[in-house]
């Protein structure tokens, strides 16, 4: 079928379907599943259904009740997705909420990301804070903590968690700390992290950590200010 463009400038609504370019400037609402090559949002957009696209660019506010499958996604502002997200490269500047699970090659977050289910990526970079309801599984995880973060389980090859300086107000009310049940990886570097269990080959426990149990194989480095329960060399 032929793909045509859909442009809404101002306020309007349309039905989903097969499109080439979908451009929503202002206030747009789409009813039904959307399959397009490119989606551009400036302003407010809501999709009652799922989105399948090559490129998605949201500047402003995006809301999708279904899932999202795309190659490349960039969000400046906020986005809320009701189901799963599958993507090659996702960049979020602002606030991203995924109710389901999130699978991508690369995830970059400047701001906040909330994933209800599991989150898996080859490379994940976060500058800000995040929460993952299930397992965060990534080859390379780099977190620059700015606010409170949380994950049930974190697993991967390299896991780096560091604290970024913030304002005094933020430090008081939203301490930049990561909380997790289990963190497992080959190379682990943690700062300001509270966890029940940390397991890895080379583990570095930095300042501000509260770890109940650390298991390591090759090397362990502990900061003086870290609180660790039991240490076991396996």
């Amino acid at each position, binding site marked *: 079928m032929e793909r045509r463009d859909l442009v809404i400038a101002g306020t309007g609504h349309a039905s989903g379907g097969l499109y080439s370019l979908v451009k929503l400037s202002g206030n747009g609402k789409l009813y039904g599943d959307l399959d397009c090559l490119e989606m551009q949002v400036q302003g407010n957009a809501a999709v009652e259904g799922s989105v399948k696209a090559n490129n998605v660019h949201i500047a402003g506010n995006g809301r999708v009740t279904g899932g999202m499958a795309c190659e490349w996604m960039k969000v400046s502002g906020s986005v809320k997705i009701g189901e799963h997200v599958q993507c090659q490269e996702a960049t979020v500047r602002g606030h991203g909420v995924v109710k389901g699970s999130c699978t991508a090659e690369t995830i970059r977050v400047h701001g906040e990301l909330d994933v209800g289910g599991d989150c898996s990526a*080859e490379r994940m970079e976060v500058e800000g804070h995040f929460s993952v309801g299930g397992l965060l*599984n990534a*080859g390379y995880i780099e977190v620059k903590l700015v606010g409170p973060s949380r994950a049930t389980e974190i*697993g991967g090859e390299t896991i780096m968690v560091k604290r970024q300086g913030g304002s005094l107000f933020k430090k008081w009310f939203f301490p930049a700390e990561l909380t997790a049940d289990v963190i497992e990886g080959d190379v682990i570097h943690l700062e300001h992290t509270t966890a*029940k*269990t940390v*397991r*890895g080959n080379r583990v570095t426990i930095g300042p501000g950590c509260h770890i109940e149990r650390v298991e390591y194989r090759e090397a362990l480095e502990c900061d003086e200010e870290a609180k660790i329960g039991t240490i076991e060399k396996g």
Partner: protein
Amino acid sequence: MEQELISKKELLELTGISYGQLYRWKRKKLIPEEWFIRKSTFTGQETFFPREKILARIEKIKELKDERSLDELAAMFAPDPATVVMTKEEIVKRHIVSDVVLQLLNDELSDRNDVSFVQLLALYLVDRLLLSGEISMEEGKTIWKMFESHYPKLQGKSCELIVLRKMGVATCFLAEGAVNLYIEEGAKLAVRLHVPACIEELKLKLSEG
């Protein structure tokens, strides 16, 4: 089914792989999600795996990972049928199934020369069972018919092929998922084959060319 479990820690020690590798393989779907079994222990929640399945899988991955990419391996381990269509000549030439089976089932195969993956899988299963002497020629035909008509309904889900025999009469069926069987005394469980495992073998055979 009460299966023997292995803890994650023990698994890594036994196989010599690292946490990173395990998570990477999980990410690439080389290890199915349902093998990750969470249980509470005194150190909190721990992950366990079905012992035999995971050990066999990891051995296989270690053996093949240098020759093939992880994506290729994932396609091989996926339970859904590969999109392969072969001709009868090819099957014979590449010794995927023996000539006996092909001749036996030649009438059943349509006049068309190409064989779909499901048909090939059915051939492979019958061939395997005949060679091991677990079934007779006639039973092979029955299994073939049953498999071809019912397997597509499962749509790639995990299933088992079961053959029961009582007083020399055999009956066969497919059971979806993992089931417990309680069989009457006079009957004998002749065959119990895990189909996804056979698919793996077959895919491996096909890709070896």
